[in-house]
């Protein structure tokens, strides 16, 4: 991975939904840098632009103005083929809803992105990754036969197998009970600490945000606050202030 460059860099990014004059700015002049091997959490009230930030950073949404760089590549106006290539090799996604393909088994879901990318993955590798997320015995189950936490772990396994430089996660624990949430967080921590991957994660749970290296706070599309090495207590306090 290109460690000379920041993994994610947003440069005065504005994203307006609707027409430029009358629309609402979901992001308003946001700048943000995530160095490689770090874990950043994004917090803020509902509607503050957290998801929009993540989508713009991942090249899923077009910014209205400003620049977005991913592992040193300027993707602001990148064509679809470039973005597709990035999605195959450089970035991965984990979302609140589990986003598995319902007709494929757990192991097929995990192996699929690699296959799309034309990479050869052995069944052994796939099983190993699934075992890594504690699902060795569920490899041939379909999503509807798995619990929410298990589905989320399959999604993480899918994001792990290609070892993406950057993982984007939007409320990855939002739909999970606390035990499942703990397992998932442990997996994410492992990706950052052991594999040196970068995570940009949206959450509204202070305890989850406290696992990250850095927390930034959004309100009305602007970054209004930030914390390094946060504790749950600090995060909750700042958030309460924002929401009041």
């Amino acid at each position, binding site marked *: 991975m290109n460690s000379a460059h920041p993994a994610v860099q947003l440069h005065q990014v504005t994203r307006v939904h609707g027409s430029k004059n009358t629309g609402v700015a979901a992001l308003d002049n946001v700048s943000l840098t995530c160095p490689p091997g770090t874990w950043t959490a994004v917090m803020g009230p509902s509607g503050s632009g957290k998801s929009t930030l993540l989508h713009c950073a991942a090249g899923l949404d077009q910014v209205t103005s400003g620049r977005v760089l991913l592992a040193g590549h300027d993707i602001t106006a990148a064509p679809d083929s470039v973005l597709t290539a990035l999605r195959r090799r450089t970035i991965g996604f984990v979302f609140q809803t589990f*986003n598995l393909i*319902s*007709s494929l088994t757990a192991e*097929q879901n995990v192996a699929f992105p690699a296959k*799309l990318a034309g990479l050869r993955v052995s069944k052994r590798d796939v099983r190993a990754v699934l075992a890594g997320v504690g699902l060795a015995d569920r490899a041939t189950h379909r999503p*509807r036969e798995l619990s929410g936490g298990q589905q989320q772990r399959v999604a993480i396994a899918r994001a792990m197998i290609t070892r993406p430089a950057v993982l984007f996660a939007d409320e990855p624990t939002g739909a999970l009970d606390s035990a499942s949430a703990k397992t998932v967080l442990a997996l994410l921590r492992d990706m950052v600490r052991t594999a040196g991957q970068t995570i940009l994660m949206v959450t509204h749970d202070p305890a989850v945000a406290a696992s990250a290296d850095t927390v930034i706070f959004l309100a009305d599309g602007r970054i209004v606050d930030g914390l390094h090495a946060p504790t749950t207590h600090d995060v909750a306090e700042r958030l309460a202030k924002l929401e009041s």
Partner: protein
Amino acid sequence: MFQMSFSTFRERWELFAGAMLSVAVGVALVQASILVLAATGNPRIPPGLTRQQEDEVREGFVGAATVMGMTAFLAMFLAVFIVSSTFGFTVAQRRRDLALLRLTGGSRGQLRALLLSESLLLGVIGSGLGVPFGLVAQHVQIWLLIEIGLLPDGFTAPWRGWAAIVACVIGIGVALTGVFTASLRAARIRPLEALRETGKAARVMNTSRWLFGLSSAACTVAMIVWAQSTNLIGALLAALGISMCGAVAMSQLSPLVVPLTAWLLPGGLVRANLREGVRRSAATASPLIVLVALLLGLSGTFGSLAAAGGEEAKRSVNAQLVVTSTGEEAERLPAVEGIAVASRQNAVDITITAEVPDEGTTRYYSGIVAVDAADYARTHKLTPSAWNLAGLTGATVFTGPARHGDGINPGQVLSVDAAGQPLQLTVVGGLLETLEAGDSFLLPREVLPRHVWSGAPTETVVQVAPGQNPADVAQRIRQQGFGDVRTVAEWATARAKHAQDGNVEILIVLMGLAGLYALMAVVNAAVIAGTERRREFAVARVTGLTRRQVIASAVAEAVAVALIGVVLGCVVAGAGLAGIGAAVRKAIGVTVVDVPWALLAVVVIGSVAVVATTSGATAAVATRQRPVELVTAKE
């Protein structure tokens, strides 16, 4: 990609079942039609027939070939239609899955490849089923064609391996053609759509619908306008064109038209659902629109033409009665009291050989009528032509309406073989074309040996003397031993019916087929809609509706959609018939339109019954599970 296609197929086979079946039926019909066509290409005429009968057999073969060609074409057209609407449906339904593929690194090309390989799979399975179906279809088709008299008894079509191969290739081609627009649409799905919670469903009126819908609508309107000012052949073509284009236009634009029509219904849940489930109601209504427009449009068109032909025939004679007998018997008619003129017209079995500009030497065996020119002229109001029937004496011949435009011109000498006796007849004139095909040649009876016409089937057109009551004269003729005496009106009606007979039977074959496809499409739409609505039904039950109420409202909604489809189809068919009516008016001076009421009733009752049953059954299946399991079910 194939792995994904396979698992999608396994998982959602019921979504594809209808499309697969329609490809299979298409392949079966194409294969059967090719085999029958190949066999009719080299007609084996049974021995011991008169030349007129041989002519009929040959014509039958041509008719059979036409039916086969039309069947195969229609089957393919409709199969493409069903496959494409099925994939349109599944792409809309699987939007999130497809967006997810993009999100996890799938390229646009891979998405297209996925859908193409799904449809390839569908085409291969459908074709595989189609070949054995084809053997059955072939038996049924041959039986039908023999039954309606187009093929002689004992007709067989030998098996040819290449026909199966051609049919399979066509079947796979149909599947791939059908998926084409859906695959383009799928490739445009953006990865972000995988993340939208309330993923705004794709617009139902997408670009290709607008494009096809509006261009077909424009074609339809142009043809409607044109039909008002063209001749009969033009109007006929326009009516067929209006039925087809109009059906396509209405069904493509049905997501707009159906909800609009729903305003006419009484309010409530059904109307709300119709407007909400636009895609679903459009999918049910469009096959019905196509069916009704084609069915009523075509049969109404042919029916009107035949009725107009009868009307024209009635107006073309200046007489009251028509007597059918042999030539010999007819000779007694002029002597019957109260008859002013009895024009005897013998359909003689002779051969006329003519040099026809485009076709070279041609032999004619049928439609040759021997007449007394003077009697014929007095009993027929002939369309003014440059030629005078008075010239039809001695070694002469007139071309009939059926040969008008063949290029057999006055002055030409035709060789005639009248039961072994050679004659040379000079063409001295011709009759103008009529709506019905009519006769081929008129020649003076006096040039023929008596035995040639004495046994020939003869129609005598009788003009009663002034002051005589036609009914009394008819009575007198019957008393003379003539069994078959009809008024001109009865004769014209019977003629129209006879002229339409072949058409009606061919139509029944084609319509049965179109009906079968419409049925498959409707069932397909109902099944897809049912699976799609599982959750919605569950929510309705959780909020207090009983299972019976849920099923009843699904049925009511489907029946309303079916009726809307039928009405819209009738609008299209009506536009075609209006053109025919105008053209007929110009040709013969009165408007003659034959509305196939009985067929309409059958179609309405049939489609409502099918739609009610399938929607009821799928709703029953979809609500079998306890609602709470579905409402709380995860993604």
